[in-house]
C-alpha cells in the first residue's frame, strides 16, 4: 500500500466515456436510428471533453477522475464504488421481485442478480488472500 499520490491519467474518465458512448452509439446505429446515434456521438464527445477538462483540476474529484490520488482519495473512490454496487444490487433485486410478480420470471434482472452475487463471492475469496 502506498500513501503517496498517484498521478493517474488525465484522459482516464474521458476514454471510458468515449468507449462506452461509442459502443452505445454503434448499437443505436445498428438498430437503425441513425439520427440518435449521431446525437449520442456528439453528446459523449462533449461529455468526454468536459471530463478531460475537469480531470486537469486539483480537487478530490479531479484526482479520482484521473484514477489516481492519494490514500484518502482512493478510499473515497472505493467507498463510492461499493455504494454504487449496493444501489445497483438493490435495484436488481427489486426489479427481479417485481418481474417475478408480473411475469413469473426474473428475466434480465435475474442475470444481474446472479452476476452481482457471483462477483461478490469471488471478490471476497480473492481479497481475503491478500489481507
Amino acid at each position, binding site marked *: 500500500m502506498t*500513501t*503517496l*499520490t498517484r498521478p493517474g491519467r488525465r484522459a482516464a474518465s474521458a476514454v471510458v466515456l468515449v468507449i462506452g458512448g461509442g459502443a452505445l452509439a454503434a448499437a443505436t446505429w445498428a438498430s437503425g436510428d441513425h439520427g440518435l446515434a449521431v446525437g449520442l456521438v456528439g453528446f459523449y464527445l462533449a461529455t468526454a471533453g468536459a471530463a478531460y477538462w475537469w480531470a486537469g483540476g486539483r480537487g478530490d474529484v479531479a*484526482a479520482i477522475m484521473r484514477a489516481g*490520488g*492519494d490514500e*484518502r*482519495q482512493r478510499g473515497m473512490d472505493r467507498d463510492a464504488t461499493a455504494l454504487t454496487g449496493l444501489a445497483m444490487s438493490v435495484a436488481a433485486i427489486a426489479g427481479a421481485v417485481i418481474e417475478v410478480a408480473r411475469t413469473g420470471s426474473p428475466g434480465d434482472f435475474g442475470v444481474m442478480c446472479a452476476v452481482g452475487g457471483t462477483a461478490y463471492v469471488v471478490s471476497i475469496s480473492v481479497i481475503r488472500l491478500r489481507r
Partner: protein
Amino acid sequence: MKNRVRSLRTANGMSQGDLGSSLGVSRQTINSIENERYLPSLPLAFAIARHFDAPIEEIFTMDEEETQ
C-alpha cells in the same frame, strides 16, 4: 483520535499545500486530517511523525472513550 498536525504545521510556517507536497498527499487530505475527519493510514501517520521529527504518539492521541 486527536492530532496536533495543524499546530505543528503552523509552528513550522507551512501551508497545508506545502505539507501535502512534502508528504506526497493532497492539500485536501491534510485539511481532513487536521479537522479529524480522516484518520490517516499507519504509513502516512509515520511519515507525518518523521516529517515533524516527533514520536507518533505525540502527534496522534486516542480519545478516552476510544481506549476503553
